């Protein structure tokens, strides 16, 4: 985590590259120590972290709110499944890039009219979009598989990787770890690009647009182009995340990519910390272990997970956490962390 924070300070690209490689290697090394279950949880969290960092970029850096990123995830997911079912031998990197591009194009189409709008209008428009995506998939069952969705071969480990493992569970463990490692590497690359984007000219222009669009315009920033770009990048990240998630789970269904997922993405991003890379990582980890969190609450409070209340506990807990974070600590866990460290380091300045 400390290394990730390092990414945020303005070091040149080369040191960001070094940090990314170190972190990716570290991440992959950790997967060797984990169980198959933890590995697959981590893989899912990594895919979600990619979506979160795209959303974080949009909300935290350009000040636009999107409730439509679950829709862009769906675009990436369907693109992946449809492509993979027709071209089984395509290298996964190509599939991922294709899905990313599809997400970006989707974002561009929606962004062209809506980035002229501000705040609530845009949020509402993207909500309407994410609401329309699942029915749209249902309407073309020959392409999308209708309500049953599509299935594809999920990622499986190459032979040399399986050979690293032994024992009766070798294949299961190898596959789980392979998907986790692929997810970690893809996430590392995505985060590397985002870290550079944060510090690029575009990134700075974006912040100016967020804080004072009139000043930005006077400074020669093209508002519409900047906002459209921010939106398309966010959608591209959602497409990539959706694609990765599809490759991990081996299926895509329209119900997955509906309003609750958009709410969940927003919650995870806010909980981690808006506009930060480490916040997106935290958000991804929370996603990975949210079921553990809920069962922990079940255990400590004695609420049965099969009762009506227990079954809906996750939604309630996340909703309440989102509200409380926004009201009490709008910078999320990352903000709380940095406030804590600055308290420890400089107690005098607080007075």
């Amino acid at each position: 985590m400390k290394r990730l924070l390092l990414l945020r300070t303005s070091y040149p690209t080369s040191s960001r590259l070094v940090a990314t490689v170190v972190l990716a290697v570290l991440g992959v090394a950790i997967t060797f120590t984990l169980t198959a279950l933890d590995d697959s949880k981590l893989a899912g969290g990594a895919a979600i972290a990619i979506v979160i960092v795209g959303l974080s970029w949009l909300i935290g850096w350009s000040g636009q709110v999107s409730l439509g990123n679950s829709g862009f995830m769906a675009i990436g997911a369907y693109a992946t499944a449809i492509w993979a079912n027709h071209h089984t031998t395509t290298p996964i990197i190509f599939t991922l890039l294709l899905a990313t591009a599809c997400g970006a194009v989707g974002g561009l189409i929606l962004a062209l009219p809506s980035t002229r709008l501000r705040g609530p209008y845009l949020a509402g428009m993207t909500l309407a979009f994410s609401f329309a995506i699942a029915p749209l998939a249902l309407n073309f069952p020959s392409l999308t598989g209708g309500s049953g969705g599509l299935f594809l071969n999920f990622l499986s480990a190459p032979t040399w990787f399986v050979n690293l493992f032994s024992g009766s569970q070798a294949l299961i463990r190898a596959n789980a770890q392979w998907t986790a490692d692929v997810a970690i590497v893809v996430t590392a690359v995505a985060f590397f690009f985002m870290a550079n984007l944060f510090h690029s000219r575009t990134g700075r222009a974006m912040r100016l647009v967020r804080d004072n669009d009139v000043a930005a315009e006077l400074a020669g920033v093209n508002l519409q182009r900047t906002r459209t770009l921010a939106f398309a990048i966010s959608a591209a990240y959602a497409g990539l995340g959706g694609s990765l998630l599809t490759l991990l789970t081996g299926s895509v269904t329209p119900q997955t990519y509906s309003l609750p997922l958009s709410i969940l993405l927003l919650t995870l991003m806010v909980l981690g910390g808006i506009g930060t890379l480490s916040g997106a990582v935290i958000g991804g980890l929370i996603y990975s272990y949210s079921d553990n969190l809920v069962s922990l609450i079940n255990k400590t409070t004695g609420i049965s997970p099969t009762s009506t209340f227990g079954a809906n506990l996750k939604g309630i807990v996340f909703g309440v956490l989102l509200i409380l974070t926004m009201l009490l600590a709008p910078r999320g866990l990352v903000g709380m962390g940095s406030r804590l460290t600055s308290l420890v380091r400089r107690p005098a300045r607080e007075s």
Partner: protein
Amino acid sequence: MGSFLTSRFITYLLGGISSGVVIALVALSLVIIWKSTHVLNFAQGAMGMFAAFVGMNLVFKGTNYWLCVLLSLAVGLALGGVTERVLIRPLYGKPEINPIVVMVGFLGVIESAIPSIWHSNLLPVPTPFSQVYYQNNGHTILISPFVIFQVVLALGIMGGVALLFQYTNLGLKMRAAALAPEVSRLLGVRVNRLLTLGWILSSGVGAMAGVIVSSGQSLAATNMDGIFVSAFIAAAVGGLESPIGAITGGLLIGVTESFILGYWSSNMAPLAGVIVLVISLAIRPQGIFTRNITRRV
């Protein structure tokens, strides 16, 4: 004449109007909140549905329907006031994304809380009016006494809100507090109270929309999701500031969706709404019913 009334066109038109009045009602409630506090309440539909659940569940237990409607209304009014005081008031003066995020969170809480409070019940809520459609020479006209009741009630509420804003002292103060809060304060108007009142009123309207939607159907926490999205589109097309625009927009969206649903596919209706919004905003971003206003720097 008979064949005209039972033609597909008229059938879809009537269906569109009866769903359009509910959309218009929710759109109106969004505009009331937007005008007073500049918050787009993403939980509006869910809040209305919560209020509807409280009242309408008692109908099954034999409680008088009208009493249950009043109970839902009371819950809706109270919920609006509490929400403004607890969730929205701390956020005045903060970035505009903060109340959006908070209300999205509230939406999630309500939609998870409803099924955890009330067991799922697929029975339709009994209504005081017959739901049997009128017939003409063996063909169905898409009107029943209950549909007439729904439309009349919705129009009545809209009329009541319009009268309140246009012709009462309270309405004058509410409009002033929305248009010029500082000047209103200087004239002794209790602006904070009126902002809360705006939420109370809006949430009451939302609760009535929830009641109208739920009557004659089975109750579900997400009943209002689609209506909320359509209502947002209606309000945005009308410009979010204009009650007349929201009501007109609501009816237009209702009819448009009904035609798409009828002539094409129900799955395409939500996308049609998005397309209507995209086109109308591309032509007139500030809304069709709003005068050009230069944004203050």
